[in-house]
C-alpha cells in the first residue's frame, strides 16, 4: 500500500476547506489525504488521481467530470468492512471523512489495467448499439453464461452480504411551501415565504446550502455572494416555521405534491453512524413531504460539448473547474484549454488563471464574443480562438492535447486546418440545461425554449419553478424570480408573502450563447473518434446516428436502443445533446424530436432509507391474542394467519425429544376425539350488529334464512359475492330481537366488515342497522371433546344439561367467575363450547381451565389440529377449500341456500346462471387414498385415466389433505368435475416423481357421518 501525502493540485489558500484539519482516506487500496470540507472527488483531484473508473461498456479509463449530482463517471463503492458496503455513490457527493474507504465500481481486475478495455479499443465496429441483443441473445440458452462475464466486466457496484449495522428512518412532513434547492432563487424564495409566516421546508442536496453562490465570482451587496447566503440561512434557521434540510436530495415527486426527500444524516461522519448516548442515530432519513405548493429552485446542469475522445480523463465541465478551484481550493490540472459556446464559462479560465496555472487558450464557437468576462480574459492576455471548437482530445489515460479548428456549427462542418494545443485539461461548456427532473416526475412534458437553448419545465398546478431551473440564469433576475415565485405560491394558498429587499448585484454584460451540441469532425461521425454523449452508459454520437439509421425515430426508442439516460444517471449530462444529435440526423428540430421523461429517483437512494424502520421485527404488524404469553411459555409453534400469530401446534417433549408436527398433531387430535382439548379461537372475526333491520340485513348478505332465528340460538351462514361464489362463512348468534353477533374467518374479518358497510352504505342505506367490530373486545376459548361438559361444569354456573343447552344454543353466565357468553357450536364434530369473555380477563379464564383440566388431560391444540378435525368432518375452510370459483351448490350445501327468501340476497341471481347450474362443475368431495399410508399432496391434480396420453385431461385437485389419527388413514377434500355423482369411483393423482396415487371418491364427511357426537 503506497502512501501519498502530497496534494499536488491543492492551492495554498482559497476555497471553503479547512486546511488545518487533514483527513486520510483510501481509494482503490492507496492512502491519500484531504481536508475537512472536501468531497471524495475534490480530494482525489487534489491528489492528482486521474482515473477513477472504467466505463460501463467499452471499459475506457474515466476521470471526474463534474462537481455534483450530474457526475457520470466517479461512481464508487464505499465501505471498509463487508457490512458497510454501499454501492453507486458519486464521489462528487460524498463528503470526505477520516478513514473513508472507497473503490471504483467498474474495472476488472483494476482501473489501471483492464481486461475489458481490449474490447473497448477494438470498440466501435464490434459494439454498436443493440450489440448485446444482437450478439448474446442467441442462442437464448447461452445468455446466462455470457451475462455472468459481462456483468463481472461492467459491474455497477454490489450490495453488502452482511447485515447493515445502521438504522434508517422516515419522517412525515407537511408544509405550505417546499422549496427544493438552496441556491440564489431558492434562498430568496424561502426567505420571502418564511417572513410571511408560512410553514416552509427548504432542502438542498449539498453539504452546504448556497448552491452556485458558494463558488460565484459575483458580488452581492458588494461582498462575496456566499456571505449573503450565510446571512439568509442564519435568518431562516432561527425561525420556528422553517425546516432546513441540508444534505437532502429531493428524489421523487409523486402525486398530489407528495415529495420524498432523502436526508443523509451521518454519511459525512463515517461509514456507520457514530453512537450518541449509546443510541445509533438513523444514518439516513426519508422525509415524506406533503406540500401545499412546491417551488423548484433546482438550478441548471452545465452541458458539455460532444467532441472526439471527450471522455479521456482531464475533460471536465467548465463550471466544475470553477467549483473545484473556488470551493475546494483544488486546480484539477496545469494547462487548460476551454471550449465554450457562451460567456459564463469564461469564469473557468479566469479562475484557472487566478490560481496561477496556465490557460493555453479559450476556444469560443462564436465569431465575435464580447461580454464582460470575455474582455477580462482578453485583458489578461489569454489567447481566445473564435469561431472554433475543440474537435478532439488527445491522450489515453490523461488529456495531452486538444485539436482545435474553425467550424461552421450550422452546417456541421470543420472549415479550417486543425491545430493541436498541448494541454492536460479541457473544460467545455455548451450552455446550461435547467434541472427539470422533478417537474418531469409529475408527468408534465418539458418545453423547449430557443432563447436559452434548453428545456424548461412545464408545471402542473401547485408547482412553481424559479431561477436557473426555468432558464433564468442571470443572478439578479434569479433572485427576484425566486421571491416572486414564492409570493405566487403563497397567493395560491391564500397566504401572504413577507417583504424582502433583494441584495444588490453588479450588472454584468453577457453576450448571447450560440447553439452547439455535437462538434463536427473532419471524419463523419460513424468513422471519427468516439464522441461520448452519455458517459455513464457509454452512448456515443455515432450510436445515436446509427439508431436513427436503423429506423428508431422516436426519441423514446433511441433511448431504449442505445441506453441513453438510463440507470442512475437519468440523462443529467447527455440527454439534451443526444436529442440534438437525433434531431440533426433526422433533419428535425429538437422540439420536434421531443424529450424522454426523467423518472424517480433523481439520484440513487439506499434500500435502508426506503425501508426505514419497517424491517426485522417491525417489518409487519404481528397481532397477538390475550393468551399469547401462555402459548409462548408452553412452547407453541406459531402460524401466520393474516397478521395474527396463531399457535400452530404445541410440541411436547417426549423422552427428551421434541415431537414433530405430525406427532404433535396426532396426539392433539386424539385428545379432542377421546378426551378434551382447548383452542384459542380469539382471532375469529366478530361483528356486533344492532338495529331493527339487522335481521333483514342478514337475510340479504347470507344465502340462508334468518327470519326465524330466536334469541339464544346460533346459525351457520354462507356469504357469497355477487357472482354467487362463496366468500366467507361463520356462525351468527341472535343475542336479542335486534341484536346479532356475527363471526367470520380470521383472515376474512376486515373484508367482511367492509363488505357489510359497502352494501349498507351504497345499496340499502334505508335499513336501520349498524356494524361494529368486536374482534379484539372478546377473547374466544373453545373447549371441545367428550369431556368438555364435565370440565366446563366445574367452573361455570351455566346449566350445561344437554336438554337445556343444546347444540347451536348460546347462554350467558360466569366462567371462572368472569361473565361469559358460551356458544355451543362445533368445528370439530365433538361436543364443544366456545367461551367469549372480555379479553382483559381471558388469561385468567384460560389458566383456570387448565387448573381444572389436569385430571381430564386437557390438551391445548393449534390450527393444524383444528384443520384435521374439521376435515374429518368435511367442514370447509373458506379460502382453502374454496378459491373464489366455488358456489355453495358446488360444496353440496343446498341446505344452506334460501332460494325462496322474499328479498333477493347477494349472489342469488348469479346462482341461476346456466354456468353455475352446470352438473359438471368442480364439486367438493372426499378422497380416500387406496393405500392407507398415503397422504395426498394438497394441490395435486386429479385425472380419471392415468394411461391417457399427455396432456391428460385434469378433472380437479386436492384442496385439503391430512393423516387422520382416529381413522388410521389419509383423508382429503378435493374438487372434482361432477364429483357429487361420482361417489365410489376411482380417480388417479399422478405425482411429479412418477408415482400415481389411487383414491376413491367418498363423502366429504369421514368421521361420525350422522353427526351424533356434537349433540351429546
Amino acid at each position, binding site marked *: 500500500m503506497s502512501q501519498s501525502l502530497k496534494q499536488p493540485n491543492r492551492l495554498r489558500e482559497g476555497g471553503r476547506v479547512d486546511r488545518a484539519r487533514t483527513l486520510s482516506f483510501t481509494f482503490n487500496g492507496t492512502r491519500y489525504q484531504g481536508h475537512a470540507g472536501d468531497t471524495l472527488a475534490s480530494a482525489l483531484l487534489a491528489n492528482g488521481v486521474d482515473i477513477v473508473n472504467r466505463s460501463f461498456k467499452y471499459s475506457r479509463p474515466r476521470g471526474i467530470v463534474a462537481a455534483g449530482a450530474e457526475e457520470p463517471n466517479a461512481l464508487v463503492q464505499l465501505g471498509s468492512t463487508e457490512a458497510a458496503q454501499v454501492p453507486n455513490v458519486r464521489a462528487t457527493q460524498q463528503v470526505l471523512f477520516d478513514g473513508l474507504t472507497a473503490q471504483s465500481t467498474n474495472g476488472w481486475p483494476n482501473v489501471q489495467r483492464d481486461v475489458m478495455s481490449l474490447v473497448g479499443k477494438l470498440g466501435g465496429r464490434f459494439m454498436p448499439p443493440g450489440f448485446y441483443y444482437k450478439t448474446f441473445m442467441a442462442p437464448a440458452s447461452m445468455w446466462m453464461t455470457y451475462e455472468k462475464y459481462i456483468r463481472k466486466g461492467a459491474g455497477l457496484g454490489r450490495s453488502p452480504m452482511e447485515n447493515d449495522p445502521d438504522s434508517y428512518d422516515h419522517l412525515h412532513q407537511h408544509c405550505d411551501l417546499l422549496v427544493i434547492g438552496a441556491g440564489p432563487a431558492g434562498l430568496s424564495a424561502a426567505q420571502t415565504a418564511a417572513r410571511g409566516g408560512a410553514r416552509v421546508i427548504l432542502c438542498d442536496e449539498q453539504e452546504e446550502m448556497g448552491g452556485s453562490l458558494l463558488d460565484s465570482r459575483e458580488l452581492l451587496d458588494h461582498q462575496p455572494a456566499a456571505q449573503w447566503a450565510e446571512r439568509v440561512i442564519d435568518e431562516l434557521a432561527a425561525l420556528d416555521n422553517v425546516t432546513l434540510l441540508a444534505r437532502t436530495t429531493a428524489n421523487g415527486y409523486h402525486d398530489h405534491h407528495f415529495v420524498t426527500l432523502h436526508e443523509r444524516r451521518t454519511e459525512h461522519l463515517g461509514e456507520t453512524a457514530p453512537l450518541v448516548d449509546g443510541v445509533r442515530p438513523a444514518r439516513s432519513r426519508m422525509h415524506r413531504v406533503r406540500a401545499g405548493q412546491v417551488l423548484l429552485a433546482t438550478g441548471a446542469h452545465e452541458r458539455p460539448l460532444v467532441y472526439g475522445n471527450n471522455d479521456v480523463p482531464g475533460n471536465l465541465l467548465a463550471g466544475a473547474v470553477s467549483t473545484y478551484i473556488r470551493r475546494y481550493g483544488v486546480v484539477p490540472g496545469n494547462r487548460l484549454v476551454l471550449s465554450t459556446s457562451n460567456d459564463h464559462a469564461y469564469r473557468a479560465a479566469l479562475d484557472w488563471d487566478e490560481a496561477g496555472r496556465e490557460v493555453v487558450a479559450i476556444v469560443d464557437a462564436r465569431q465575435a464574443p464580447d461580454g464582460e468576462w470575455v474582455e477580462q480574459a482578453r485583458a489578461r492576455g489569454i489567447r481566445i480562438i473564435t469561431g472554433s471548437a475543440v474537435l478532439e482530445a488527445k491522450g489515453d489515460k490523461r488529456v495531452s492535447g486538444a485539436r482545435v479548428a474553425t467550424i461552421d456549427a450550422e452546417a456541421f462542418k470543420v472549415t479550417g486546418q486543425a491545430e493541436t494545443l498541448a494541454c492536460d485539461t479541457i473544460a467545455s461548456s455548451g450552455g446550461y440545461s435547467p434541472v427539470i427532473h422533478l417537474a418531469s416526475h409529475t408527468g408534465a412534458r418539458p418545453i423547449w425554449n430557443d432563447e436559452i437553448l434548453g428545456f424548461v419545465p412545464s408545471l402542473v398546478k401547485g408547482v412553481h419553478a424559479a431561477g436557473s431551473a426555468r432558464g433564468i440564469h442571470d443572478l439578479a433576475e434569479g433572485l427576484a424570480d425566486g421571491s416572486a415565485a414564492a409570493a405566487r405560491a403563497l397567493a395560491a394558498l391564500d397566504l401572504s408573502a413577507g417583504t424582502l429587499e433583494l441584495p444588490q448585484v453588479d450588472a454584468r454584460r453577457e453576450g448571447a450563447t450560440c447553439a452547439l451540441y455535437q462538434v463536427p469532425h473532419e471524419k463523419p461521425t460513424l468513422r471519427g473518434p468516439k464522441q461520448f454523449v452519455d458517459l455513464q452508459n457509454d452512448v456515443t454520437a455515432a450510436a445515436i446516428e446509427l439508431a436513427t439509421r436503423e429506423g428508431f425515430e422516436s426519441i423514446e426508442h433511441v433511448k431504449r436502443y442505445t441506453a441513453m439516460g438510463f440507470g442512475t444517471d437519468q440523462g443529467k449530462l447527455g440527454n439534451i445533446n443526444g436529442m440534438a444529435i437525433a434531431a440533426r440526423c433526422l433533419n428535425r428540430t429538437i422540439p420536434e424530436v421531443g424529450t424522454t421523461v426523467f423518472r424517480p429517483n433523481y439520484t440513487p437512494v439506499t434500500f435502508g432509507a426506503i425501508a426505514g424502520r419497517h424491517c426485522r421485527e417491525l417489518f409487519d404488524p404481528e397481532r397477538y391474542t390475550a393468551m399469547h*404469553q401462555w402459548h409462548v411459555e408452553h412452547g407453541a409453534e406459531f402460524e401466520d394467519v393474516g397478521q395474527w400469530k396463531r399457535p400452530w401446534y404445541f410440541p411436547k417433549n417426549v423422552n427428551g425429544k421434541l415431537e414433530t408436527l405430525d406427532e404433535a398433531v396426532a396426539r392433539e387430535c386424539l385428545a379432542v376425539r377421546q378426551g378434551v382439548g382447548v383452542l384459542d379461537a380469539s382471532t375469529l372475526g366478530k361483528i356486533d350488529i*344492532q338495529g331493527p333491520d339487522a335481521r333483514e340485513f342478514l337475510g340479504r348478505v347470507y344465502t340462508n334464512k334468518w327470519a326465524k332465528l330466536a334469541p339464544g340460538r346460533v346459525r351457520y351462514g354462507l356469504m357469497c359475492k355477487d357472482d354467487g361464489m362463496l366468500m366467507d362463512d361463520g356462525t351468527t348468534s341472535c343475542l*336479542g330481537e335486534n341484536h346479532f353477533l356475527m363471526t367470520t374467518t380470521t383472515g376474512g374479518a376486515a373484508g367482511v366488515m367492509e363488505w357489510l358497510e359497502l352494501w349498507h352504505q351504497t345499496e340499502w342505506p334505508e335499513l336501520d342497522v349498524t356494524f361494529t367490530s368486536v374482534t*379484539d373486545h372478546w377473547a374466544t376459548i373453545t373447549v371441545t371433546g367428550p369431556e368438555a361438559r364435565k370440565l366446563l361444569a366445574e367452573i361455570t354456573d351455566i346449566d350445561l344439561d344437554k336438554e337445556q343447552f343444546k347444540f347451536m344454543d348460546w347462554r350467558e353466565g360466569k366462567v371462572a367467575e368472569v361473565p361469559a357468553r358460551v356458544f355451543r357450536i362445533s368445528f370439530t364434530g365433538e361436543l364443544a363450547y366456545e367461551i367469549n369473555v372480555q379479553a*382483559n*380477563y381471558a*388469561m385468567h379464564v384460560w389458566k383456570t381451565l387448565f387448573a381444572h383440566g389436569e385430571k381430564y388431560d386437557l390438551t391445548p391444540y393449534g390450527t393444524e389440529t383444528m384443520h384435521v378435525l374439521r376435515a374429518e368432518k368435511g367442514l370447509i375452510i373458506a379460502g382453502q377449500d374454496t378459491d373464489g370459483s366455488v358456489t355453495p351448490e358446488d360444496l353440496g350445501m343446498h341446505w344452506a341456500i334460501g332460494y325462496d327468501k322474499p328479498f333477493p340476497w347477494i349472489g342469488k341471481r348469479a346462482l341461476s346462471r346456466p354456468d353455475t347450474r352446470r352438473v359438471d362443475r368442480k364439486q367438493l368431495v372426499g378422497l380416500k387414498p387406496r393405500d392407507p399410508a398415503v397422504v395426498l399432496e394438497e394441490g395435486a391434480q386429479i385425472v380419471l385415466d392415468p394411461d391417457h396420453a399427455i396432456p391428460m385431461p385434469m378433472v380437479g385437485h386436492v384442496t385439503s389433505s391430512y393423516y387422520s389419527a382416529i381413522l388410521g388413514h389419509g383423508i382429503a377434500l378435493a374438487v372434482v368435475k361432477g364429483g357429487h355423482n361420482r361417489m365410489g369411483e376411482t380417480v388417479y393423482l399422478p405425482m411429479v416423481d412418477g408415482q400415481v396415487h389411487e383414491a376413491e371418491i367418498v363423502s366429504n364427511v369421514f368421521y361420525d357421518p350422522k353427526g351424533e357426537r356434537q349433540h351429546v
Partner: protein
Amino acid sequence: MSNSVAQNVRTFETHPEATVPAESPLAWSYHHSGRPGVSAKSCVVLRERAMLGHMILRGGAIVLDEAVRQVLGVGLPARPNGLTRDESGERSIQWLSPDEWLLIVPGGEEFALEAKLREALGDAHYAIVNVSGGQTLLELEGEKARELLMKSTPYDVHPDAFPVGKGVTTVFAKSNLILRRPDEQRWELVVRRSFADYLYRWLLDAGAEYAIGVEA
C-alpha cells in the same frame, strides 16, 4: 349481569363481581420488551391508561347529543374530528365518523352508562357497543413526542393542523389507531388490543433516540 333495557338488544356486564386478575393488552409487551425507565434525558414519556371503559356510539348526532348531555353533562363534539371532555377530564367523547363516536370513561362505568344512555334514547335509532376489552389508551408526553409521531403517522401533527381538542383515526406505522390531543401536553393513542404489542415495539424503537421512558 345482563340487562335488556331496550328489550331487543342484549347488554352485558363484562366485569366480574369477584376480584379476578385482569391483563391489559400490553401485559405481554411489558414482560417481553420491558419498560425503559424514565430519566432526565427522556424527551418522550409513554404511559398506558389501561382498563378504561371504551364504547362506540352510533346514530344521529342530534338525538345522541341530547342523551349524552343528559347523562354525562357534556355534549358531542360540534365538529368532525372533534374531542370533548367533561370537567374532570375523565370522560371524553370523540367524533369518529358522521354517525359514530367513541366514548371513553373510567373502567367499570360502561355497563351502567350504557343502561342510562339507552333509557335516555328510548326508541331512537342508535347503537351502543362496549369495546373496552379490545383497546387501550396510551399517552405520549415530552418535547419530542410530536417528532416521534411524525416518524409514525402521515397525518399532520403540527399544532396549526392538530390543535388541542382534535382526534383522528389514522395510519400509524403499518397499523392504524386513533390519535387525539386532549391538552397542550399530551397526545393520546387509542390502540387495538391485538396490534398493541407491535405499536409498543414501534414506539420504543422509534423513540430510542429520544430516550423514551415508560411510566409504570
